[in-house]
């Protein structure tokens, strides 16, 4: 019985962290599909959103206002980075664009550092508790943090809305056309600047939601907190086939599952019903699995990335166009 609950609980964990990765990964994938730009500053948008939320909460604004401020602020930052850094270098070689996104990230990180300093806030900054998001749900012997359930549901709702937007609206259609072939889309009379700005705005909005949920879970903020999540989101997008929105969503959940699997496996030694495996095996599991797997999780995840890049460069659901890897 214990084992069933354990698995259920880990499944919810996997889906909730997977939702966060998926929310971030679609932003990366949308921009990449149109501009062939890997926007590493996307991770810093998550950080910026978390700081907007924290400052609004510290100013004792009501939660709805906090969320509006956070969304508006993050989308504005996203649009500004497109206008000021990425538009001038459109058409530059891949690597130059990638490096530019790192520079944009540095500006956001150091800018945040400077602002917290000027506002005389500590670094790292404790994220204020939001009572609506804290606490746990209890079902029988499973306890699930409320924020995990929220991540899961919100993630699924937003991703469904995004799919509807991309498939059912004119702007969504233009976006897919631009992703297919940017110059041709322009020749067909599509305002590509508007499409690109929309992609950045939607990506930033989704990143902002992910940033808030992330901050609630982490409990404290630093200007560098976006680096690891964006790498993970990138891996999610690559696993799913870079540039495909559905692929990014799938990759997000796959990565969430993989990570929770790697951290959950060590607990198995304590939870297995007696008699399932011999006591000596159980003792071995208990002794070796905890330290040896979960602390190497990030390394393992990157090995997976490198393997995917080498053997399935188009990902699980990648577009049929052959990516030139040479």
């Amino acid at each position, binding site marked *: 019985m214990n084992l069933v609950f354990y698995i259920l609980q880990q499944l919810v964990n996997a889906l909730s962290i997977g939702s966060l990765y998926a929310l971030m990964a679609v932003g990366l994938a949308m921009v990449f599909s149109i501009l062939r730009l*890997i926007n590493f500053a996307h991770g810093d948008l998550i950080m910026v959103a978390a700081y907007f939320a924290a400052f609004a909460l510290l100013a004792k604004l009501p939660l709805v206002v906090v969320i509006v401020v956070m969304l508006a602020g993050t989308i504005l930052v996203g649009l500004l980075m497109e206008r000021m*850094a990425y538009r*001038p*270098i459109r058409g*530059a070689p*891949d*690597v*130059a*664009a*990638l*490096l*530019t996104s*790192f*520079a*944009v990230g*540095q*500006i956001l*990180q*150091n*800018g*945040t*550092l*400077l602002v917290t*300093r*000027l506002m005389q806030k500590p670094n790292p900054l404790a994220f204020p508790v939001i009572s609506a998001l804290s606490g746990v749900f209890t079902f029988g012997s499973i306890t699930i943090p409320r924020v995990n359930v929220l991540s899961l549901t919100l993630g699924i709702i937003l991703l469904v809305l995004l799919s509807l937007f991309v498939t059912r609206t004119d702007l969504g259609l233009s976006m897919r056309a631009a992703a297919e072939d940017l110059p041709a889309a322009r020749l067909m009379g599509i305002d590509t600047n508007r499409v690109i700005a929309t992609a950045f705005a939607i990506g930033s909005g989704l990143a902002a939601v992910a940033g808030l949920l992330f901050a609630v879970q982490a409990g404290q903020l630093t*200007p560098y907190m976006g*680096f690891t999540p964006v*790498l993970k989101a*990138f891996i999610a997008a*690559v696993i799913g086939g870079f540039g495909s929105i559905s692929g990014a969503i799938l990759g997000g959940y796959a990565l969430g599952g993989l990570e929770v699997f790697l951290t959950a496996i060590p607990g198995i030694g304590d939870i297995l019903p007696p008699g399932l495996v011999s006591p000596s095996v159980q003792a071995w599991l208990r002794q070796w699995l905890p330290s040896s797997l979960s*602390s*190497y999780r*990030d*390394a393992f995840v*990157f*090995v997976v*990335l*490198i393997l995917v*890049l*080498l053997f399935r*460069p188009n990902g699980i659901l990648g577009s049929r166009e052959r990516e*030139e*890897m*040479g």
Partner: protein
Amino acid sequence: MRTEVQDRVWARAAGPLVAIVALVILLALLQVTGLAFWQGLVINLGIFLILVLSLNLSNGFTGVFSLGHIGFMALGAYGSAILTLPLREKQEYLPNLPAWLAGIHFDFRFGPFPLGFLVATVIAALLVSLVALLVGLVLMRLSGHFVAVATLGFLVIVRVLLFNADNLTRGSRTFSNVTPYTNLWWVWAWAILTVYTVWRIKHSPFGRAMFAQREDRWAAQSIGIEVMAPRLLAFVVSAFFTAVAGSLYAHFITSFSPTVFYFDLTFKVITMLVVGGMGSVSGSVVGTALIVGLAEVLRRIEDPTQLYGISGIVLAVLFILIIIYKRDGLLGQREIALDPLFTKGGGTGGEGQMTNAE
């Protein structure tokens, strides 16, 4: 009675020789005056120069952009520091070293000369080159931004390993009590060797193959130019010197933790490379000097005002401006030639004031 050929050889050697003599005089002056601040700055400059030149060899010459080099630096730093740590410190700070490593201590001297430091640096750098060979065999097949992200993955993996290999690295705790062997002379001797090596590679058939496959891989391949061999050579040699820089750094600051060797440092080195120009040896020198100088000035603004972040913003904005307005950096692939200064009649024709690599 010297022949014309001899004349030309002398003219060629004269520039670098004069530069080296000037450098030695400068270093000696710094040594004698004992200005600790300037000595530190010049040591820093030398270490960064080695890092930037190595990165130029791999990323600039071949166009295969690695973001993982600081991982090689970290391995070089930890590797050489473990090797040079004296026995007593080893027992105290690294009590769980494997037995065969615990007995090794390259702290011996040859007269006043710390020969052990040299041996440890070379051994560590060779081991790192071996790692680079294995990593390169896998990753050099990729290109464009995919190789950049895969090598970034390598950086993350190295960091996780350093944090977890408690017995070797003390994990997240500071690795300290490294003997401060590094001084002006060590750093600049290695820096000159790096300049010389990278320069020679650039003007060798291997170097030309690197540039050729960078410009147009398929055209190069179709006329029989290898792609993998020059890429691997560049990657491995540059890992060697990056590891040397790591060793020099470790024995300069004497205590460090894995957090130092991460993305901020990576970005700083890349900024120097891009500002100077990818593919130009003299560009690397110019870029490194400019950015190290600028960073120092900015630090002096940051420290008293406590407004940390300004220097990062200024450097990143500068970086973006360079990418927008002068994408090839200050020098592109060109070199500042020294020899026309020493040739009768102002140059022998063949090499102009600015020689072009192609």
